[in-house]
């Protein structure tokens, strides 16, 4: 009885360590980078450009957002709107450093520009967005299309 008890304990420990051995790296990867509160605005008819905003949280070591993609648009670029001498300029970002502090993509600041939208975005729609990081690899989030005023459909806090 004791023998078999020890045996099953051993098997349990082996399976546990195997399971942990397999699970830890992917769990750590998934948890280090979180993309939360992803939202977008509805687009007027005939307009095939759109936007996506979100916040990136990083619990791990410093990482770098390299690119974004979504099936709803032909292309997606990392941009920043910045005021220079009272003039709003929009510039492309080749990558975005993500350290310990949360990085916000928000109106009139860093944002993802969606180009060649395949259909207009409507309030209440949810579409996938994949963010690719240097270390963490691909992190998927779901983008909620809010009302034209950026409100109306509430908190979109999808965590992945």
């Amino acid at each position, binding site marked *: 009885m004791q023998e078999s008890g020890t045996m099953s304990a051993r098997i349990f420990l082996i399976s546990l360590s195997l399971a942990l051995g397999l699970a830890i790296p992917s769990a750590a990867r998934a948890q280090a980078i979180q993309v939360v509160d992803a939202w977008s605005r509805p687009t007027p008819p005939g*307009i095939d*450009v759109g*936007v996506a905003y979100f916040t990136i949280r990083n619990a791990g070591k410093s990482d770098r957002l390299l690119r974004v993609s979504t099936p709803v648009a032909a292309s997606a670029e990392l941009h920043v709107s910045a*005021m220079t001498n009272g*003039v*709003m300029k929009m510039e492309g970002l080749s990558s975005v450093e993500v350290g310990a502090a949360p990085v916000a993509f928000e109106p*009139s600041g860093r944002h993802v520009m969606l180009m060649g939208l395949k259909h207009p975005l409507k309030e209440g729609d949810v579409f996938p967005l994949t963010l690719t990081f240097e270390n963490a690899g691909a992190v998927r989030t779901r983008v909620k299309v809010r009302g034209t005023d*950026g409100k109306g459909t509430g908190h979109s806090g999808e965590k992945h």
Partner: protein
Amino acid sequence: MAVAAVAGGIAFGLLTRSGETPSIAGFVYPEPRAISPFRLNTQDGKPFELGALKGRWSFVYFGYTYCPDVCPTTLAELARAHKLLEDAGLDASNQYVFVSVDPERDTPKRLAEYVGFFDKKFLGATGSDEALAALTRQIGVFYSFPEGRKGRTYAVDHSSIVALIDPDARLHAVFTPPQKAEGIADGFRRILGTRRGGSG
């Protein structure tokens, strides 16, 4: 007694401030600047000229429809400001105008679809570079296109201001970015207050 004195002091302070430049989320011209003639076209192909600014307050924003971030953000706030002013009974004859500085891409049809999406009351207007310059220079709006622009998705650098033009077609104030509906509505309320309390 003390309370009455303080209240009186506040009331006196408010009264004496009438006619002075109110503080808003932007700036108010101490001497409003008369706008000279210009000629643009609305999204319906109708002329939009100096006369269209007379007899009502106009909120004018300059941008372009391919702008993904700043323009939709500002227009959404302006639409909310319109609602706030409507609710406050301060919207009798106001007009809200989106002037596109990108006439090449912003056809009348596109303008119509765009402005109507934000607010049914919004008016869209644009014109040739020359026609635009006749208005933008007076308001201090700057815009420029990237060199060798091609394709459809180039970005236009532009002043992202909301100009407030008074019923005498004078540039009265400018709301500077990032504009919020409450800031626009509150600023407008203050401007109306000083005009009524002052000589006007």
